């Protein structure tokens, strides 16, 4: 498995800790939600970045009290057709203003990449079946989106049609105005 970030494969320096693994002295760690709740104080003092692996049947609002120490939230797609994590990511970004990384794990495929990025995912744990070019192509195959406020924060973003139209109509107004003015 490899991490895909900003359209490129990145090295994965995160250590996944099980419930009982000893917390290392330093380094970036991923813990489950139960451990995050249990060891919150200890993790807060940890020298290294903290991520939580959060199941897709739990409510994101339960994470609210812990977001201050989280650098990353790992959400999961047990199968690519189970779309709960899209809503979780969206809630984290829009309602809980989470600015850390949101990582997609599980059954992550190129044809869903664009949707994931729009909902707020920016890191993807993927297998080696597809090369970087295939991922890039999938991410950029649609250059437009109708939905408001669903744009990725970094990297390639499709244009927001409804806002583009507004800009365009302002431009139109301006050019109409200039036409009248210079006539």
């Amino acid at each position: 498995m490899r991490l895909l970030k900003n359209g490129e494969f990145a090295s994965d320096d995160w250590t996944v800790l099980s419930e009982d693994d000893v917390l290392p002295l330093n380094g970036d760690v991923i813990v489950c939600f139960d451990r995050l709740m249990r060891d919150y104080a200890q993790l807060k003092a940890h020298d290294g970045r903290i991520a939580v692996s959060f199941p897709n049947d739990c409510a994101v609002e339960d994470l609210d009290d812990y977001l201050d120490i989280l650098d990353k939230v790992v959400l999961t797609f047990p199968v690519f057709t189970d779309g709960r994590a899209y809503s979780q990511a969206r809630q984290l970004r829009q309602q809980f203003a989470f600015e850390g990384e949101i990582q997609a794990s599980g059954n992550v495929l190129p044809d869903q990449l664009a949707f994931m990025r729009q909902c707020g995912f920016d890191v993807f744990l993927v297998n080696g079946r597809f090369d970087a070019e295939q991922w890039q192509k999938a991410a950029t195959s649609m250059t437009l989106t109708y939905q408001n406020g669903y744009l990725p924060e970094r990297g390639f973003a499709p244009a927001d049609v409804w806002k583009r139209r507004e800009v365009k109509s302002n431009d139109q107004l301006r050019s109409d105005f200039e036409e009248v003015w210079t006539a």
Partner: protein
Amino acid sequence: MYRYDEFDHRFVRERTTQFRDQVTRRLSGELTEDEFKPLRLMNGVYLQLHAYMLRVAVPYGTLSAPQMRQLAMIAERYDRGYGHFTTRQNIQYNWPALKDLPDVLDHLAEVEMHAIQTSGNCIRNVTTDQWAGVAADEIADPRPICELLRQWSSLHPEFSFLPRKFKIAVTGAPQDRAAVAVHDIGLHMHRNADGEAGWEVLAGGGQGRTPMIAVTVRDWLPERELLPYLEAVMRVYNLHGRRDNKYKARIKILIHELGAEEFRRQVEEEFARAGTPEVEVEQRELARIAAYFAPPAYEDLQDVSTEFELAKNGNRDFANWAKINVAEHKAPGYAIVNISLKPVDGIPGDATTEEMNLVADLSERYSANEIRITHRQNLVLPYVRKRDLFAVWSALNDAGLAIANLGHLGDIIACPGMDYCALATARSIPIAQDISRKFADLKRQYDVGPLTINISGCINACGHHHVAHIGILGVDKKGKEFYQITLGGASDENASIGKILGPGFSGEEVPDAIEKIIETYIAIRGESETFLQTYRRVGADPFKEALYATA
């Protein structure tokens, strides 16, 4: 009607390019069938009994003449010379080859059409009143909202992998011709105490194996809050809808299991937390869209047309058709023409290339270039001057399309059934044909009065049998087709689910059973009492007795 701008064009073109690539990858083996299936479904491509099937979206059932001609061309060039209009106001082709489908989608894009999200576990094509914008009883044309919803739901990043499919229906009139109470979300326009038009939001209606009438989530919502509110409903469903059992995955089951009160609470909580940050953008967009739905330039006409009255006096067939198939229009001197696609012995909803072209020609000449598809699988010319009605009728009559049975016994809904559908457990079309032959006499149909017969070939209920006055459901009983009859369903503003009458019948027995039901009704009906009114007054017993007592 709505016209694509450069963005809509580019969006659909990019989508067809993407699908062309996906088809190439499937044919080369780069994509497995399991991976390809959800992708093809999101582009309207099913695999049916004999071949692939392409379902093309007709957004809110509105078509222009050039669009109808293109549909006719596609039927001719890529299919077998016909198409099937569905209960979701769409059109289906039954024989296209997968390798041709990217070209077909390109041809659709040429006329501002697509097949995006006509299948799959996403928000499907939005449906509405087939008389939107012209109905005499309407508060406002619901199509601007429908178009806004079309755009908003197209490739929605959050709601493309829902627990199950999701259908939204909208009506802008008090009389519900869009069956909003049996949709995942139904939107029904009302005025509040201040006279402001807004939306009642219903959710959790549906048919299938667990038919349910929707509950009201909000009595009245200001229009500007509609999209954020729908997003809240969708999000609660996406997060909490069941994914462990396909048959319990629709939103109706979630609402049923949570209870309407708790569901409402969760939606309102989500709505409050998400806020309405983009409302201004959406309102601007809605205003932009609404301008496209301005009515055509109506001529200043007297409501009574002498030509029309004279023609009726001179031709009894025309007079009957005008009485049955022509509806009241909001503009004086105009009429709504309903074209029944239900000839005796025909296949409900099927239209040939020639028929599609004829309707396109008529719409161009007499109806401001516009055509509607109805959820009862018929067509509508929405802007016909009364004085042109005879000419329209004559052209239809020459083509065998002036069938004066709208809303009557012969106007039967039937899903494709086991003649085409991979999921069906029995055939539907032959049952519709048998009934239509038995009741071919129009005078008899008029005597019976308004009546809906809907036939589904399996429990998924695409033929809307649950909400028919007389519903027929085909099932498989030890390898034989068997048909259950339900009575008392309705899909209007007083929607109800029909009740099973008793043991089923073989296909050959169905027409006689229907006849007994009809005769019973005629024997016990009160003065000017419709079939449904009679059933609601007396219940199932007299009908049961007629069907089963003598057996």
